[in-house]
């Protein structure tokens, strides 16, 4: 039982450390933003974002961004469908990202 508690403590420690790093990152990011030339309201809702922004946000969360020229429009249709399923994208995210990639691939 004591060993199990130790393991749990290690796991919680890892997550606590990670959370602190994230908070520190957010803090640093906030400072960086405050020194920028203009204050732009944060656009966080999916509906307010364009395809390029959603593509950068969602895809780079797990892997490097592939160039839009990697595939043609028809191939992107298949690839983005796959990422809709695998990365739990919403239908709106799928459509916007696909629209961007199809336009940028040509």
């Amino acid at each position, binding site marked *: 039982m004591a060993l199990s508690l130790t393991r749990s403590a290690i796991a919680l420690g890892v997550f606590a450390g990670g959370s602190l790093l994230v908070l520190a*990152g957010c803090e640093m990011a906030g400072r960086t933003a405050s020194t920028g030339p203009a204050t732009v309201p944060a656009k966080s809702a999916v509906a307010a974002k364009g395809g390029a922004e959603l593509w950068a946000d969602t895809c780079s969360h*797990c892997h490097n961004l592939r160039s839009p020229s990697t595939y043609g429009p028809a191939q992107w249709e298949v690839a983005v*469908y796959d990422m809709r399923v695998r990365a739990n994208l919403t239908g709106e995210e799928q459509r916007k990202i696909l629209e961007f990639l199809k336009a940028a691939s040509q």
Partner: protein
Amino acid sequence: MNGRNYATIAVLAICLAAGARGYAQPAPAPAPVTREEFDRAMKEIADLRKEVADLKAERAAAATQPAATAGGADVAQLRQEVATLKKQQAENQADADERMAETEKLVKDVMAKAQASSLGETKLLITGDASVGFTSQKNNTSTFSAGVSPRLLWKINDRLQFDAAMDIGLDRNPSDNSSETTFDLTIASVTYLLNDYMVIGAGKFVAPFAAYHRDFDPPWIDKLPDDPLVFSDNGLAPGSILGAFVSGGVPVGSAKFNYAAYVSNGPELSITDPATAGSLMWDNNVDLNNNKAVGGRIGFLPIPQLEIGYSVLYGQASPGGNNNPTGFPTTKAFLQAVDFNYTRSSELLAGAISLRSEWVWSKVGDATYDPNGTWTPNPGPLTFNNARNGGYAQFSYRPTLSGYKVLRNFEGVFRYDRLDGPSAAPSGGGHEQRYTFGVDYWLDSRSVLKFAYECDDVSNAGGSPAYMMQFGVGF
């Protein structure tokens, strides 16, 4: 002027001349003229003068504008006819253009329908990944390795897609240095987009349990050459499972949730090999106990760069059919996992950082192993607390915004991972933990050359540090 006018003029002229000559001859006895006759004659003269004047004017007008009077009507008529013809031609052209546009649209529609229903390359995408590597580990023979995992994605229509993937590799057994080529069907599933927030699917699919197998496993995504212990072949987390699932994502204000729930055939319980007794295996393709395992994962993204997830799986674990000669009882398996993924690109850091961490807990119900006491050197019957856990924490940094161009393609990685087994298990249990330091060089966004040094610490066995290299590519 017509001929009758000329004749009238000539008659009048002769009459006048004759009148004049007669007036010059000696006059006979003058005949009496009445007042009425005189007035009538004067009127006739006035009329004749007027007619002569009109004829002169008409002749003069004819001399100055001969065309206007002779061909003007014809030209106007011709012009009108030309205008009419032009109008008809324009109408015909517009009609032809309209018909041509309709024909082109019809051809496009037919081609689009034909393309949509075809099995051609436009709807079939061949993708996947591959890797080659080399490992040199203390107390083991150094070896090369290679593997390829092609994937076929077939989009049947806008809502339906089939996904097939296989894992072709070279397995090596370190204990006797034997090897074999392996061919595993890792994915064979069909998915249907129910609505904007829900997908359903069935077949063999990557288990939505934790995040590694689903998100980070391919060698062009994984930043180190090997898997964390808990997600390796002898780890705790399931890879691919056979069943059905529902999943999706739901935005909530500025945040986003995602979810997945599934039912599957469930795990197999290892009971015959003392080295693995009590562990769960996920590569069975049949339901061993007619009790489906259920599970799910829920993820939360307060910001796009951060995801925190919790996974659970519950099911009954039974030995395989031929491995259960003694009627080994079915036991319950309960697994949980938490996962954490944070990525950020910052000018302040002159690059991008990534922090990933996952931990898995596994608890299998009590059972009595080796009831007949056949194992050596420690024969059963044996019962132990079958609880295991393991996970990893990984940090990486790539100076993508560095002023030195040569540095932008390098990435430094550090990972700590650990796997704890039950100390009373016949395998001896204990723990294994590793510290891995790596440097990656990205040739492009999907091709990476990895170098890593791994310190291994196994309880009761000491460490076996390893040097690893791997080239990973996604295609």
